[in-house]
C-alpha cells in the first residue's frame, strides 16, 4: 500500500513534509527529466541525502535514476569540454566537492563525510563510463580511470538516466 504509507509519513512534519514520499520521488524524477528546473546544488544535495538519510527523513529512497542523473550532472558541471586534456575520475569525492565549490553549495563536515561515503557508490557509474569510453586507450585509460574531457562531455550530454 505504497500511497497509504507515503501519505502517513507526510503527515505532521511541518511545511517541508506536506509532500508525500511518492510526490517527492516524482518531483525528483521530473527534475532529472528536465521537466522542472532544479538548482545546481540540488544534485549535490541528492548525493548527500541518498541512502539512509533519504529513507529516514524523506521516508522514501532517492530513485536510482535520479542518483545516476546527479553524478552525470555533477561530472558534466566539473569537466571542461573545450579542454582536450584527460580528466582523472579516480576520486569521485573530489569531483563532487569541486562541483559544490564551483556552485558555492552549502556544506559542512558531516555532509562531506556523507559525500565521501556515497562517492564510493557513485564511482560505479563513473567506472561504467570509463569502461565504455576508454576505447582501448584512445580516449582514456580504464586502469587510471582517466578520460578525455571532450569525449566524456559529449557522452554525458547525450546520456539520460531517467
Amino acid at each position, binding site marked *: *500500500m*505504497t*500511497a*497509504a*504509507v*507515503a*501519505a*502517513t509519513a*507526510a*503527515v*505532521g*512534519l*511541518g*511545511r*517541508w*513534509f506536506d*509532500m*508525500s514520499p*511518492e*510526490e*517527492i*520521488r*516524482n*518531483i*525528483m524524477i*521530473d*527534475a532529472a527529466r528536465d*521537466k*522542472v*528546473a*532544479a*538548482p545546481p*546544488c*540540488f544534485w549535490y*544535495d*541528492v548525493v*548527500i*541525502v541518498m541512502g539512509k*538519510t533519504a529513507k529516514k*527523513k*524523506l521516508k522514501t529512497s532517492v530513485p536510482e535514476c535520479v542518483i545516476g542523473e546527479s553524478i552525470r550532472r555533477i561530472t558534466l558541471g566539473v569537466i571542461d569540454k573545450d579542454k582536450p586534456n584527460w580528466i582523472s575520475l579516480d576520486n569521485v569525492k573530489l569531483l563532487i566537492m569541486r562541483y559544490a565549490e564551483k556552485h558555492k553549495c*552549502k556544506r*559542512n563536515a*558531516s*555532509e562531506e563525510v*556523507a559525500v565521501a561515503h556515497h562517492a564510493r557508490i557513485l564511482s560505479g557509474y563513473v567506472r561504467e563510463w570509463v569502461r565504455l569510453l576508454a576505447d582501448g586507450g584512445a580516449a582514456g585509460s580504464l586502469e587510471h580511470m582517466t578520460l578525455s574531457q571532450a569525449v566524456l562531455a559529449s557522452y554525458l550530454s547525450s546520456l539520460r538516466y531517467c
Partner: protein
Amino acid sequence: MSRVEVKEVEAGEVPVEIIVEKVNELLKRYELYGETRMMNKSAVSRLCGTIESRRISKAKQIEAVAKATGRYPYVVFAFQREKNVLCMPDANYYVADGIYDVHVIDCDGDRGARCAEVAANVADILGLPLPQEALLALADEGELCARNILPCRKRAERAEGQFEAPVERKGAEAGEEAEEVPPVVKRVMDTLLSMRAAMREAARQGQQSPPPQTPQPLPTQPLPTPQPPSPDPKGVLKEVGLGWLVPVLDDPASAAAVRFVMENREVLNALKDEEKRKMVVQAIKEGGIPAPSTLDRALEKWSSKEREKLLGLLSKTRDLYSLASALIEYLTNNDHCTFEAVKTILDTAAERGLTCEAVEQMLSQ
C-alpha cells in the same frame, strides 16, 4: 588531586604497600569525614555486599599484597550515601579472613561527588574496575561529568532526553517535530517545494490555455460511443498529473479503501469529531451492530444526514467488516494510513479537477 599513597617497600614479592595514615589526610583534603572501623571479613561483606569468588582473579594487585603479607591488611573505603554503599575495593576482593581497616565515609548531600572522585582515584590506583552505576549511586551524572569522573554525554543525546517529556505530553506530533532534521534535508525539501510550486504554476498555465484547444478536436473526431474519455485509468491519472496514484490501482486493498471512503465520505468527515469517534469505536470494538435507538441517542451531535448514513452502514452486516476494519485502523491510531492516504488522494484529485465519480469509476474497473 592527591591520591592514596602507594609505595614500593620491597622489590619483588611485596610490590605495594598502602600507608593507612594517608587515608585520613586524603579524606580531610576532600573535606570528607567518617569513622574508621576495624572489621573482619564477614562484617565487611555485610557492609559492602556479597563475595563473588569468580571475580577474585581481577584483583591481581591486591592478591599480591595478600599473598606477600599473609595477613590481608586491607584498607577499605566504604562510601555511604543514604542506603547505598560503594566499597573500594569492592566485596569481591575480600578473599580471606583478616582485619580490615574500613573507612566508612559519609557521602550525603553535596559530598557525593567528592566521594565519587575519591572512589574513582582509589580504583585507578588499585587498577580495579569501577562500574558507572556504582558511581551514579553517589552523585548525579551532571556532577560526575563536571568533575571529569564520567564522560559527558553528547549534546544530542542530552537533547533527546530533554525531548522525552514533551513527546509524552504532546504525543506523536511533538515527537516528530523534536526529531532533528539535518540541514541538507531541509535544503532538499525546500528545493522540492519550490519545484513543486513551479510545476503547479506551469500546470495551471497549461490548463488555462487548453480550453480553446479542447473544443476543436471534438467536432473533428466524434466518438461513436459515449464511453469514458480514456479506457485506461492509469493513462487518465497520468494525464491529469496524478501518476503517483497509479500504484493504488494495482493494490486491491488501497483501491478498496478509496472506494470505501468515496462512498462514506460524509461519515468519515463527521468522525473527525473526537466525541463522535469515541462512541463509534466503542460500538465497533464491542462487536456486533449497536442498537439503532441507543446509537441514535448518542449521535445527537451528528447531522441527520450523517446519522442516517452511519446507521445505514452499521445496519448492513455485509459492510460491517470493511467499515470496522477501516474505522478501527483509523480511529484507534493503529494504522490510520488508509484514511490519510485516501484523503490525500481525494483532496489532490479534487484540487486537480478530477471528480470523485471519475476516480471511483477508475477504481471500479
